[in-house]
């Protein structure tokens, strides 16, 4: 029994929570009826297009929009960065035009004449010395503990060192960034925005446009991918609103694909030289890393190494931020963690190989170096993943010795994430006709937010999922946090639970006299309100609600709030990759990816598993294919398209096995976020699997054939 009235029901009393429920907006999406920002068409709407800078670093010297202004259909032209402005990456916005049709707007873009003074730039940072000599490297920061040098000099230690790297990649959201903005009054706007935070966009618009935030409504019923890149209205949001005002028409502006991948999301890179030492029994003793990376021209916050196994008794960890003209960094699903995992888990896997130790055993042995007492969780997950991946059958020491050019290998990695639910407010209404709505200023990124809210409310009220209508995606609903950091499901499930419990209790109070027991003797189950243990004393849901007369029930649940154990923070996760490498061609095939993942109490097992499947696939993509390719000569991104910015396809992914850790030891932790953690390990697990297959490390992602062949050649096993 729950200790506090808002706590999650005991396992036996959950009729929906933890089961497999199809996402409630699935039919709208699969039928194409779901309207995304890109699909919003308003009467009289104009189309915006952008003039962008072709240089990585330049000063605008002149802008001539006169020809563009005279072109057919053109309604307004706005200079965003005029003469004197210094531009720090190719693709940056210079002039925006709006016209009656997309084609006219595009013609006008071509007619704008901008002159630039080109300035020196740096777009590739893999070689730190080049960044240093270009004066683009900041002073290194360092954290230390103990005396690593002494450990490295201890002859009883096994020491391994290596170089590792993971490049800048991009978000490549399928729906580009952008808005449709409409002025609904002289001081009022409505924005349809592709947004990860409908509740926080109004304040951004208000500040930029100097209008009251309460006059701004942001709507995002569906978003075609965000992954951390859609928290800001961005400069184009401001200019689009201004152009809508200037023209007196709604304006639609979403980035074209090349612009999207050039500027609307880059994940910072990480490169490192790493030295690690362990006792001969595998106990990790010392770590030393010199790491660098870039997240655009501004200094980046830096990668924290070592990752997960942070309590290595002796370590020194240095980071150098490199400023590069590649576009601004944006949070990418589990910011910094995939990079930290790749660098750390590769170095540790190399050490395990040097120790002649099975890496699953090695990570299990050192798992208590992880914070938050996750050691036990890691050991359980490593064991589960190993079992599902048939580790004991397929794993072998470094280097597949079987004849032929196809080498098979297995690799493992572990990860961690926080995922505590964010601030959330749920307004729940029970109408006298029995209809139930839950309203939250949240958004569903495809993670299943709508479905989770419906499940929690329905489970609490004893209704089927269809009995609850969920309204989200509108800033006019009660405030909810932006969807970042895997905080949404924790936030909305907890606020919804509180609102639903209160609403249920009010309904109990209203119908208790009619049923003939006191309110505390009632339960809501199976679409009825009935006396505990006596189903003969009951009303159907509809009958019960009719007792409300003219008065609806409306409650407000808040997160954080009472019964804090509804949610918590801190997850683990272990993954194993099984790959085959063609040593003649350097091509890698993923045979199987296995994930064991915890996330506390699971609300919807089906959409939870989907998050992990999706993360594995996204992980395969960045492990094997993805890279923002920047040209040293022109300073431009060479693959600003989906042809050479390669995403994994349906045939590239192999078999996927997902195991969610549930039941005792997990459920009582309450709800913890899940969206991000499973995308952290695939890069490291796949890199380790390739090293296991080949007997040599391919030092950096993506594991493209050129690098695989070079590593094979270097390792002398061709």
């Amino acid at each position, binding site marked *: 029994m729950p200790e506090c009235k808002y706590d999650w029901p005991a396992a036996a009393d959950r009729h929906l929570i933890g089961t497999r429920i199809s996402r409630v907006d699935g039919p709208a999406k699969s039928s194409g009826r779901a309207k995304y920002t890109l699909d919003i068409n308003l009467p009289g709407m104009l189309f915006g297009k952008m003039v962008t800078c072709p240089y990585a670093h330049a000063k605008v010297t002149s802008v001539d929009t006169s020809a563009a202004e005279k072109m057919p259909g053109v309604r307004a032209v706005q200079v965003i960065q005029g003469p004197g402005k210094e531009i720090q990456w190719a693709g940056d916005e210079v002039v925006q035009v709006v016209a009656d049709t997309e084609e006219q707007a595009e013609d006008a873009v071509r007619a704008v004449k901008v002159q630039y003074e080109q300035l020196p730039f740096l777009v590739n940072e893999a070689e730190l010395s080049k960044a240093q000599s270009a004066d683009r490297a900041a002073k290194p920061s360092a954290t230390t503990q103990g005396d690593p040098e002494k450990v490295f000099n201890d002859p009883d230690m096994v020491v391994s060192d290596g170089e590792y790297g993971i490049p800048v990649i991009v978000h490549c959201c399928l729906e580009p960034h952008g808005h449709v903005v409409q002025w609904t009054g002289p001081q009022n706007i409505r924005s349809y925005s592709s947004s990860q935070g409908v509740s926080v966009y109004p304040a951004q618009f208000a500040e930029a446009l100097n209008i009251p935030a309460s006059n701004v409504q942001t709507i995002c019923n569906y978003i075609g991918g965000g992954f951390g890149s859609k928290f800001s209205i961005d400069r184009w949001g401001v200019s689009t609103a201004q152009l809508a005002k200037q023209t007196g028409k709604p304006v639609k502006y979403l980035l074209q694909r090349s612009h999207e991948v050039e500027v609307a999301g880059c994940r910072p890179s990480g490169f490192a030289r790493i030295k690690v030492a362990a006792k001969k029994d595998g106990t990790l003793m010392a770590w030393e890393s010199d790491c660098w990376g870039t997240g655009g021209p501004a200094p980046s916050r830096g990668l924290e190494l070592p990752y997960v196994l942070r309590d290595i008794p002796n370590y020194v960890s240095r980071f150098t931020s490199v400023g590069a003209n590649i576009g601004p960094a944006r949070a990418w699903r589990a910011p910094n963690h995939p990079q930290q995992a790749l660098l750390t888990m590769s170095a540790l896997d190399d050490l395990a190989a040097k120790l002649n130790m099975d890496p699953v055993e090695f990570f299990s042995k050192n798992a208590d170096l992880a914070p938050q007492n996750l050691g036990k969780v890691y050991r359980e997950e490593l064991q589960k993943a190993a079992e599902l991946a048939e580790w004991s059958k397929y794993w072998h020491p470094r280097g597949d010795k079987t004849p032929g050019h196809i080498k098979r290998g297995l690799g493992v990695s572990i990860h961690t994430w926080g995922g505590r639910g964010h601030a959330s407010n749920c307004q729940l209404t029970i109408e006298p006709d029995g209809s139930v709505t839950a309203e939250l200023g949240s958004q569903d990124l495809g993670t299943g937010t709508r479905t989770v809210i419906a499940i929690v409310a329905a489970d609490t009220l004893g209704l089927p999922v269809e009995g609850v209508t969920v309204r989200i995606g509108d800033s006019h609903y009660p405030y909810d946090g932006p969807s970042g950091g895997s905080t949404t499901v924790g936030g909305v499930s907890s606020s919804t639970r509180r609102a639903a419990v209160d609403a249920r209790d009010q309904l109990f109070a209203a119908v208790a006299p009619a049923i003939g027991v006191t309110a505390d003797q009632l339960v809501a189950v199976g679409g009825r309100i009935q006396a505990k243990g006596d189903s003969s004393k009951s009303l159907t849901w509809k009958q019960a609600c009719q007792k409300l007369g003219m008065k609806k029930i409306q409650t407000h649940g808040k997160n954080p709030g009472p019964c804090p154990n509804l949610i918590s923070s801190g997850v683990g996760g272990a993954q194993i990759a099984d790959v085959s490498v063609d040593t003649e061609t350097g091509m890698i095939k993923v045979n199987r990816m296995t994930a064991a993942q915890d996330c506390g109490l699971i609300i919807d097992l089906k959409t939870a598993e989907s998050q992990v499947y999706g993360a594995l696939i*996204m992980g395969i993509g960045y492990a094997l294919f993805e890279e923002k390719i920047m040209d040293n000569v022109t300073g431009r991104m060479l693959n600003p398209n989906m042809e050479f910015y390669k995403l994994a396809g349906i045939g590239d992914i192999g078999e996927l096995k997902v195991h969610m850790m549930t039941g005792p030891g997990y459920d009582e932790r309450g709800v913890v976020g899940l969206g991000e953690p499973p995308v952290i390990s695939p890069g490291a697990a796949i890199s380790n699997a390739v090293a296991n297959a080949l007997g040599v490390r391919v030092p950096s992602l993506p594991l493209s054939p050129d690098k695989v062949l070079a590593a094979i050649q270097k390792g002398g096993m061709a």
Partner: protein
Amino acid sequence: MKDKKKKVRNQEAGGVSRRDFLRGTGVVVSGAILVGEGTALASPQEASAGIRGPGEVPVTLRVNGETKRLSLEPRVTLLDALRDRLDITGSKRVCDRGTCGACTMLIDDKPVYACTVLAIEAEGHDVTTIEHFSKGGQLHPVMRAFVDHDAQQCGFCTPGFVMACIAFLKAHPNPTQDDIKKDLGGNLCRCGTYAGIREAVMQAAKTMSTGGSSNA
């Protein structure tokens, strides 16, 4: 010219219904010239040589069984014609270069990338979009299977994938995983829903072969 245009537009912009929107775009947004009122078609000789444009010309499309008369420049793609002019927005514009499949439509029952087809080239053919397969609110078995197997997350690639799968299952009523690899590789997903899609295809194949309801 510009002023006159504005006047028309303002009248058109009065209402907000879908019908008004369509009227607004058909008449004005696509270029201020009423269809049939006088188009950019030049001399009769050129017309006989089949030359049209570069300005707007009448283009007649047959979309989901309905005849749609539009005024378009020849450079307008089928995808943009449907999305911008007809408010048929199920097909998505993503890569806009014939790589990702989000815009997949059927032309004479064959899947194509509508971002890379000129609308004018679709004249005389049957264009079918995702909207056709859920007419009356009923889900096509492929759509149902996508829901059941959670073969969608953000959902932006989904309509294109559903269209590709519908066509795929016509060609492969009993598909293998290898068929999926070889013929469904023309669609990309960013959220990573392929695991669900593989299962959904198999389920839909079963439902459809056992005579599951289909308005295909």
